[in-house]
């Protein structure tokens, strides 16, 4: 009796339990079939990627955890995480991975999947819109500045039509179109 009473307090929960019913077994293969995702399952959870990351100390899910979550099939958590969008795309994690897991490339794949489900930060939707409207991120406004530097006021050869036409037919077009 005394024994059970002493154990009455539930143990402190160290890790949130994973709800197995919510796991998506196809997620792992989905990522593996995406660009540069092949090496995903070589991950042996050493967390070198996290040690190499300049900003992971502020993340809820660290790079090695995100990779593990993909392997486990935690699709929803990964695709809705803000971490994939905060990633600097600096490739430090990928460069150091002893298993040649292309960590940064895989986060790009995750962002593409999130984008397909319209889970994109507003600021990035805004950039997509600019790309589609203007055909480039930056437009020359101060042409006098260029002339001051002995350059043509307008960039020779620049043409944005083809760029816009291409993106209109790909996901960018759907993201921006679906937003209006």
């Amino acid at each position, binding site marked *: 009796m005394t024994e059970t009473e002493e154990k009455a307090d539930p143990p402190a929960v160290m890790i949130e339990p994973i709800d197995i019913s919510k796991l998506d077994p196809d997620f792992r293969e989905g990522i593996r079939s995406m*660009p*540069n995702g092949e090496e995903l399952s070589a991950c042996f959870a050493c967390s070198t990627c996290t040690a190499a990351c*300049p*900003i992971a100390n*502020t993340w809820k899910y660290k790079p090695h955890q995100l990779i593990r979550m993909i392997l486990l099939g935690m699709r929803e958590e990964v695709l809705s995480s803000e971490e994939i*969008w*905060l*990633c*600097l*795309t*600096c*490739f*430090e994690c*990928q*460069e150091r991975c002893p298993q040649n897991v*292309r960590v*940064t*490339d895989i986060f*790009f*794949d995750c*962002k*593409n999947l999130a*984008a397909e489900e319209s889970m*994109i*930060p507003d*600021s*990035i939707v*805004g*950039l*997509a819109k600019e*790309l589609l409207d203007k*055909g*480039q*991120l*930056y*437009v*020359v*406004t101060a042409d006098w*500045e*260029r002339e*001051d*530097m*002995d*350059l043509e006021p307008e*960039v*020779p*050869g*620049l*043409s*944005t039509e*083809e*760029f816009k*036409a*291409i*993106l209109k*037919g*790909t*996901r*960018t077009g759907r*993201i921006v179109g679906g937003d209006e």
Partner: protein
Amino acid sequence: MPSYNLYMGCSVPANYPNYETSLFRVADKFGIELIYMEGVSCCGSPNLRAIDYMGWLIVNARTLAVAEKNGHDIVTPCNGCFGSLKDVYHFLIHNADYREKVNAELKKTGVEFKGTIKPRHFIEALYNDIGIDEIKKKITKPLDGVGIAIHYGCHLLRPKDVTEFKPEIFEALIRVTGASVVEYPLWKQCCGATVLPVNEELAIRLARDKLKSMKEAGAVFTTVSCPACGNQLDLQQLGLKESYGEEYNLPVLFITQILGLAMGMGDDEVGLEMNRVPADPILKHLSG
């Protein structure tokens, strides 16, 4: 006299004509012909890659295919454009199925990606095709003893199996001017530019970390090979006065501005007045 297709991207011409003009002047010294590419625009940036991988592949494959028409390699002064073009080049060379898909789209615009030319960063072309010995002959105003910290930039260095860029290239181009390369702990780290649209505070913190690391290691100024990195390290110094109450006074020069100055060009010729943090320490050194 090597000829290249010049892919400017959108940031340099719009924001940094000082980089563009110094690039042309340096190229001119070596008889390098730079041909502005016809009918191209933006690389889309890592943001496009994040949301629309296929679109990013097609626009960059198209740029590569346009260059294939005259057979000259592409050179670009932007790490971001270089990163996009080189990654797409590398990916399509190694993935026949995607190459087919992309080419099916490109067919509609009358071009085809074959992978017959390479996209290169301008400084790599300068180093490999002109060579340090030739560059040395043109140095008339050596920057003897000036300590320069190099910010290489993520997309120039990594992933290294894709970029094939060696940090020694950048270092050699600085040393040939007589300057010394200041080593600092955070040399590999990101400047924060990519995350600017999603989290400005984080972007500013990263720029600060870099500047602090350079300054503490004794850098007199710093050099970049990318408009986004340049913007981040130069412009944010003004903001850091407010947000962190810190003043770094670390001039940020594009590599072609430094080479130009060391080759005897005037500060107006390399557009030094456009650099936000005044480059006085360098000018003082050159006139002294």
